[in-house]
Each structure stands twice: as structure tokens, then as C-alpha cells.
């Protein structure tokens, strides 16, 4: 059975990949290592976890304005997530998604954090704003 979450696509493109879910906001500068695509903030629930190639499902961005630059670097270094899904729209996260150039859906309902679990296979459609939980 598939579940559909409907939101707003802010970066176009369609991708299918495994979800990596966190309920903690993510810091870019000081929060991720761009060379390995890994969360490095010690108190974060994804501490030490790699997001490369995953659909990063998270509440939103926090911390430094370096957020967009750090996620942009993951694209340039080949460690970027495959897609992003978040519901708290801020300049940091929105600009970050744009320069990471991965399909991105924001403000989806029902709340992705309530529905999606790490390991679910997701289809993220940045054109239509639909996130589908495939299995």
C-alpha cells in the first residue's frame, strides 16, 4: 500500500531513494562533514550517520548561514542527499535545497515526520510536490 504526502515542490526533479528521517533540525556549518556526507553534531540523533544518496527527511535547518554553502559543497563533492523533504521553510534550508539541486518538497501533509520512517522507499516529485511512500 502506498501513502501520498502532498506539499509544495521547490526544486524540480523526481527521485526514488531510501528515507533517512530525523526529528532534530540539522546544522550545516559545524553540523555536517561535506567530504563524507555525515552528520557530525555530537548531540544530534543522526550523529555519525551518512545521508549521501538518501532522501533527507528533517524538520528544517538551524545554525549558521553557512547551511546552503555546506550542502552545496556536498553536491560539488558527490556526497549530497538524493532529495530533501522538510516542513519549516527558512531562507537557509530553501536556498540550501536550491544550490544542492536535489528534488525538494516542503510543507507536505500529513507531516512527513509522522508518516515516514528511516529505510522507507520514497518517491520525491519536486515538480508536483508529492512525496510517495512506496514501501
Amino acid at each position, binding site marked *: 500500500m502506498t501513502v501520498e504526502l502532498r506539499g*509544495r515542490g*521547490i*526544486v524540480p526533479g523526481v527521485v526514488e531513494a531510501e528515507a533517512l528521517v530525523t526529528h532534530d*533540525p540539522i546544522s550545516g*556549518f*559545524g*553540523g555536517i562533514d*561535506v*567530504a563524507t556526507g555525515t552528520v*557530525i*553534531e*555530537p548531540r544530534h540523533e543522526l550523529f555519525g550517520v551518512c545521508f549521501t544518496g538518501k532522501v533527507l527527511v528533517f524538520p*528544517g*535547518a*538551524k*545554525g*549558521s*548561514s*553557512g*547551511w*546552503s*554553502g555546506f550542502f*552545496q*559543497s556536498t553536491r*560539488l*563533492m558527490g556526497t549530497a542527499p538524493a532529495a530533501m523533504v522538510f516542513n*519549516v*521553510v*527558512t*531562507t*537557509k534550508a*530553501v*536556498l*540550501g*535545497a*536550491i*544550490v544542492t*539541486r536535489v528534488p525538494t518538497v*516542503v510543507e507536505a501533509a500529513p507531516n512527513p515526520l509522522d508518516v515516514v520512517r528511516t529505510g522507507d522507499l520514497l518517491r520525491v516529485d519536486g515538480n508536483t510536490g508529492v512525496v510517495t511512500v512506496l514501501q
Partner: protein
Amino acid sequence: MKLTDEESSMRDGVEGDAVAAAMDLLIRYGDALGAERLVDTRNVAGTMTQPSPAKAQLVREKGWAKAYAVINLDSDDDFEIPRMKVPTCQLQHGFSDDADGLTSYSKQSIELQADAESYYSERGVNVLATCTPYQVGNLPVRGEHVAWMESSAVVYANSVLGARTNCEGGASTGAAALTGKIPYWGNHLTENRYATHLLQADTSIDTFQEWGLLGYYVGEVVQEARPAIVGSLAQPDLADLKHFGAATATSGGVEIYHIPGITPEAPTLEAAFGGGTVPEAIRYGDAERRWAYETLNAQGDSDDVDFILLGCPHASLDQVAQVAHLLEGRRLHEGTELWVMTPRALRTMADRNGYTQTIMRAGGKVLTDSCPAMSRAAPPGTRVFATDSAKQAHYLPAILGIEAWFGTLDECVDAAITGRWRGELA
């Protein structure tokens, strides 16, 4: 998003390919935010000159214009970069030659950055090279729309100066500098500037450290929201608010706060909330203060301190003077490093006042342009560091894998002299 004729013509290439790419990025960005239009700005603070592995690769292959196109405009096209359309300054970047040899930070990065400074200076970027442009002459006025990045500068500009900026990034500031435009969204709109949360300090906020602890707690509690702070608050100075704002933006994502009677958009508590309902206060008392202190100190284990870092955000001249005063006639413990980070313009004043010489005679250093978090480099062999900055205590363990102690300036200087951490919450 609605565009003016001027904006449409920029998008269509009337002012050249770089400006067209800049407008394209601003439109994609503004649409994604849900902005209805752009707003004019004549004050941009961004980052262009700081090296990163990805940028170094782009520069090697295609030069600085390519690096600006990809990183500051999100464009893969090749074009020349014209002079910045509006006043633009460079924020803090990597270490410059004053830090050469003090860390593992590479000589190549220092040279690359010097090259970038020449390139961007020719295009009208003022190389202030500090996270605190407001300390060295870039002081937007109340109500002015600006496009700034650097979370601690953004929260200071919005809250203390009453200027209006969102927390911009490298690409949006790069595009704003070439167009004089930024999305009219978020903090640019009056209705988005009113407080959402009330914080009541029941414990006395009367020192630099207390402002940092309070800020770290406030950021943790409100995250991205807009706090108004009341209670037992002594009159803060520039350094206190610089520290407070940076701490709120580190543990959370605070971009604007109000202190009734102190900050310009909150003459009263009612004004801070725009005449709306004032919510029940979140209390900051002894338990919350201790939480902030213990959380910031949870990443220290060994009392053997190698490195003391002061000045984050970059130290004011008064802070440098205070460090010099505490170090007068004293000598750092062997093997312990002490750095004071300050804007280069203030370093010139510190030199003139003799503060630099006093700090150096004691074995410390006054450095400019950057910080260990930004450059990702500390003195070689550093295992345990101490700082009076909540922001550095939060970030450096993650970035450099070292232990951290957070304390007062006096405790930090004591650690520098003895090589031992003896700080505790008073």
C-alpha cells in the same frame, strides 16, 4: 513572484549574463520561499573569498569568475563578473598570512585567499574580513533592508540595529550584490518581526558570561522563533549583545529578538509583541542556567588545557583591551596557546594602543580575518581548548574533534597562565 520592469530586464540579460544569472537565482529562491516580490538593498555582506576544497577545484579549472558563478550564483555558465552593483563586504574567511605557520592551515589556502581578495576588491567588494561588520563601519540604519549572512551578524543587525535581513547564504548574497535585490520575505516584513515567545530571566544577567548562557538557553527553547526577553537584566553593551545573539543563533536559529527598553523595535513589552497577546513567560532560573553551563561544558573531560580562544564573534576593541589588561606582566604556561580573534581594522587600533604588544609579550596572539571554526584549524596538537564564547564551545568539538571548556574571561586567562582548567559556575 511579481517583477518590476527593471527586474525583468535584468533577468532578460540587459545588464549582462552575470546579472541575468543572479536574477534567475533570486527568482527561483523567492518563488521557493513564497515571496511576492523582491526589495531593493544597498548593503550586502557575504562570502566570496574564503577557500574551500570545492571552490579551490573550481578556481584551478576555470578561475574566480567560475567560482563566483557556481558558488555565489548557482550557475554553470561561463561569464565575466562585473563590479558589484551595490556596496558589498566580505565577511570572515579563512586564515590570512598572520596565521601562517601557526596551524596546519595550508599555505596554498592563504595564497588562494589573497588572490581572491585582489579579484573581488577590483569588483568593489570591501574586504572587511570579519563576522562583525557592524564593529568596523558597516552599520545599517533602522528599517534599512539589507542582505547579510553570518548568523551572529544577522541577529545583531535585526535586533540591535533594527535593520531588516533574513539569514542569507553565499548564493543569495552573491546575487544580491550584482542586482541590489533580495526576496521581500520573512524578516523584511513588519508583521514577521514581532515577538512570538516571552522569556523571563529570574537570575541576574549582568556579565558577558551570563548573557552567553541565557542566549544558549533561549536558542534551545525557541529554535527559529522570535523571543522577547525580560527580567533581571543589567544594561548590556555591544559585546554582551554580540555574545547573546550569537549564542541564540548557535543552539537555535534565532534571527531577531527584542529586549523591551533596550532594542529599537521594542520600546515596551507590548510593542515587542506588536500589540498582540503576550504569552505566558518561559522562565530562566538557576536550573536553566545550570543546564546551559553544563551542556556547554559537557565536551570537556581533561583539565589539561592546550589552547585558549577568545573573540567569537570577533572581539571588540574593549575586549582586546581587557585581555591585555589581564595578561599584563604575566606569561602563558609553556605549551599553551592563547589567541584573540578580532577584525583587522580593530587589530590596527589594538596595535596603536599597545594591547597587541602586551598580549604578545605574555605569549599570546592577536589574529584577524577568521577563527578556528571557520578555518577548521587550531594550533597543532590541540586536544583541549577553553573559551569564553558559547558559540565556539558549541562548534569546535564537532568541527575539530577536541574537548571544550566554557567559562569567563578570567577563567580562560587563568587557564592560559596555568595550563589547567579551574572554571566553575559561580
